[in-house]
């Protein structure tokens, strides 16, 4: 089974009003430094290596003792630097971290190494340096091509930044992915179509399109609660999804996950690992990890403390940065597999579903939520309508 490493870089220049990711905007760092962060993250990589890679020091690490010596020969297939804004770090720092990972386990020859980047946080030069050090892919937070929408989203970049970043990435030989958001307050169907078209003009290898979720604990959530902005209209978001799916498909981007489209051979392998029950170690404040069930241990998810300072102190003192964990019961693992797998183009093996779930299939097909033809071949694959109602399907199956 492929093994991934995720590195969470919890810093941003400013915090966007809709964002509830673990990230700290400049001025909110409370004494944390980028340098301190890098040292701590390298420390955690060392810890992970000791735990996963086997050897004599293993058992001192309490939080992962259940997985000690699980698999002595790891090599890393995918690395993903996410955030936050990983490119808040200078390219040397990112390279040091990647080198740390390489030193710990070695990178597979065809490893996929992604960095998320805000379009205005990279230059052609940075991207070239990253490519030279082994990065293969950049995921740019384009979000929209429309100025007013970008403003509502508190984005610091303009459309021209995206164009330049894509050009730089191409020149450096990197694969390019673009993140888009639809359903921003004030955004109409025509603005969204404009964004989709603009993204396609940039000819990326991969696109993610997310429907805006206004979380309560964000500035936008507070504005919503005060009635200053209108709630997102789910019907409009549905139309936007359909419009995007049409446009992407006819431009040669096939959906392979509800929110993700790619050209042949350019799916994000790292994210596919998340969705197919793969193993990965998440490095950094607030990062999540998962190791599947093995000999004598249940499948386990754990996650780190969120604040960079506390994270740094823990690593410095040799303590585990783990904040919490859950051991998944067989049933929970099964539910997760359905919940994640149903969203994929490959879908689920109908025969492997429990009886109650299988009984629900004809009705789901009758309602046009799952593909009739695929079902005939024993696969449960969502139709476009079904992708928009994926949670309905998941509830019916679990």
């Amino acid at each position, binding site marked *: 089974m492929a093994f991934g490493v995720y590195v969470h870089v919890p810093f941003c220049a400013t915090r966007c009003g809709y964002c509830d990711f673990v990230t700290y905007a400049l001025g909110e760092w409370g004494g944390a430094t980028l340098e301190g962060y890098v040292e701590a993250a390298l420390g955690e990589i060392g810890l992970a290596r000791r735990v996963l890679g086997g050897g004599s020091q293993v058992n001192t690490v309490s939080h992962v003792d259940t997985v000690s010596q699980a698999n002595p020969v790891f090599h890393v297939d995918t690395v993903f630097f996410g955030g936050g804004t990983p490119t808040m770090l200078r390219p040397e720092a990112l390279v040091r971290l990647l080198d740390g990972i390489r030193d710990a386990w070695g990178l597979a020859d065809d490893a996929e190494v992604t960095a998320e980047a805000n379009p205005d946080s990279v230059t052609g030069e940075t991207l070239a340096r990253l490519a030279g050090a082994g990065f293969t892919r950049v995921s740019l937070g384009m979000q929209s091509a429309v100025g007013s929408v970008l403003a509502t989203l508190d984005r610091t970049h303009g459309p021209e930044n995206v164009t330049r970043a894509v050009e730089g990435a191409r020149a450096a030989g990197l694969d390019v992915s673009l993140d888009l958001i639809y359903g921003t307050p004030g955004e109409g169907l025509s603005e969204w179509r404009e964004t989709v078209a603009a993204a396609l003009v940039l000819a990326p290898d991969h696109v993610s399109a*997310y429907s805006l979720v206004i979380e309560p604990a964000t500035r936008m959530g507070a504005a919503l609660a005060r009635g200053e902005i209108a709630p997102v209209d789910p019907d409009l978001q549905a139309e936007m999804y359909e419009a995007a799916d049409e446009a992407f498909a006819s431009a040669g981007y096939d959906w392979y996950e509800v*929110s993700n489209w790619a050209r042949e051979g350019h799916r994000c392998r790292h994210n596919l690992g998340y969705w197919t029950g793969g193993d990965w170690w998440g490095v950094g404040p607030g990062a999540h990890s998962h190791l599947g069930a093995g000999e004598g241990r249940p499948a386990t998810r754990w996650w780190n403390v969120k604040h960079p300072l506390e994270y740094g102190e823990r690593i410095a003192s040799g303590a585990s940065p783990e904040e919490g964990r859950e051991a998944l019961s067989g049933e929970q693992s099964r539910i997760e597999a359905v919940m994640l797998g149903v969203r994929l183009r490959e879908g689920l093996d109908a025969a492997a579903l429990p009886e109650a779930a299988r009984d629900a299939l004809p009705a789901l097909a009758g309602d046009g939520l799952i593909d009739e033809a695929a079902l005939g071949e024993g696969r449960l694959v969502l139709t476009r309508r079904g992708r928009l109602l994926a949670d309905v399907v998941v509830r019916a199956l679990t």
Partner: protein
Amino acid sequence: MPADPNSPASTPQAVIRNFCIIAHIDHGKSTLADRMLGLTGVVEQRAMREQYLDRMDIERERGITIKAQAVRLPWKVEGVDYTLNMIDTPGHVDFTYEVSRSLAACEGAVLLVDSAQGIEAQTLANLYLAMADDLTIIPVLNKIDLPAADPDRYAAELAGLLGCDPADVLRVSGKTGAGVAALLDRIVREVPAPTGDPDAPTRAMIFDSVYDTYRGVVTYVRVVDGGLKARDRITMMSTRATHELLEIGVISPEPKAMKGLGAGEVGYLITGVKDVRRSRVGDTVTGAARQATTSLGGYRDPKPMVYSGLYPIDGSDYPDLRDALERLQLNDAALSFEPETSVALGFGFRCGFLGLLHLEIVRERLERESDLDLISTAPNVVYTVTMEDGTSTTVTNPSEFPEGKIREVREPVVRATVIAPSEYIGTIMELCQERRGVLQSMDYLSEERVEIRYTLPLGEIIFDFFDALKSRTRGYGSLDYETIGDQAADLVKVDILLQGEKVDAFSAVVHKDEAYAYGVRLTDKLRQLIPRQQFEVPIQAAIGSRVIARETIRALRKDVLAKCYGGDISRKRKLLEKQKEGKKRMKTIGRVEVPQEAFIAALGTYDEPQAKGKK
């Protein structure tokens, strides 16, 4: 507590006075009773609390009396020790039967009137009940301490009503105690002593019967003839069942065991029976050895006026609900229930109540004392439906209203009495007209206040009529009613259909002219309450197969988490688990998932307006 100079079982009837306090709700009966408990010394100052006799939590929280309470009080007049038996009664119309039972144990009644409000509807209703029992009435104005009190005006009103001199109307304050001693003296002088035969075979009237977890059934009696002693064997005259008197005593104001009770006295007995139905209110107790031949006149059992389905929100609570209802019924003969099933709500009970306050109180006690979460369906009255072929059915659940060729539908009718300032006559008549009322008579209590009598369908007044009356008379109108029979009416059943499936819990019987408005209101309400499904859901209101209103819940197009959630998969799974938890609280009708909350909210519209308040 001072020793009772007259000991039970050997108190001569000449020094016994049995009376009750009757009034409109809130006119201060229980507060006046407090002063009597204090003045006679049965409750010491430091043990005193407001409305001492309102012992149930629910009575204290709502500030109303639900159960009548009898207390033995000593009182000395001109050197003679008297024994008073005082009964505090409830004022709310739902509990009028408690007043009737209390009256049967008494020779006199204190008719209490708030001197800032004057005569109100239950003042009259309770007065007429007392007069029908030939009781001596002592008119008393209460709350004379209030700045807004107008005792002269209301003394005249009362004098006009009773045909006495305004100067005969006593003035007291239950709050300050002013005039209460004089009132007790007056009771001694005017209320006749009991006149039963102490030597005749024993006859005692059961006027209350209460189940107590520790002591079993406690039966309250008024001894008319003969007497009862501890260890006596007694016979219930209706059933001829014989029991031994394990304990006999008086309430003053806590129960105290005594040697016995003599003719004219009021007290309690315990026989060890576990079921109040074997010690029925209205029955006559006689001695097993020397039995009386004729029983004392009984009471009619209170008849339920309103029905509602009670369902546990969690279906597995059904057996607990049944146990809880059985337990409550032990103390509440007016509560009736029968199992029923609803497609929408599952297993539950169709329960009969005296009115909406009664419903509300029963429901609250069930929820509180037995820790149950309940849904109650919209309350309805009882209908008699006669078909063309002559068969007739009694309908207590609208969903069982027969289909087919109906010859006649009959509904219960009440005589309603409204008392209000005369400036509101027009408004009140308009309201009664809207509710299909027929004016019977109108009398002036004084120049400014009128008593208006209407016959009205019970179904038209039981829900929100009182609220409408209060708001249209700026709070001055009061209402009382009693059932007088039934009448034929143009009533139809309106069904509500979700995706073509009838939702039994929402069926209602309404007047033909109201059916359309009802259908529109409920379909609109449901459209707002039922979450969108992945298909379109039509909501229809129909009379038989004729659709009279229709709404549509548009199909849900998007129900998917389409945000980047990275590796935080636990959060997504928890979200799903929460959604599934929510789904468990859904009832599926056809294919439509309806949250319990939608049922509660949709059904809530009918009992909300007045049930919380008091009359």
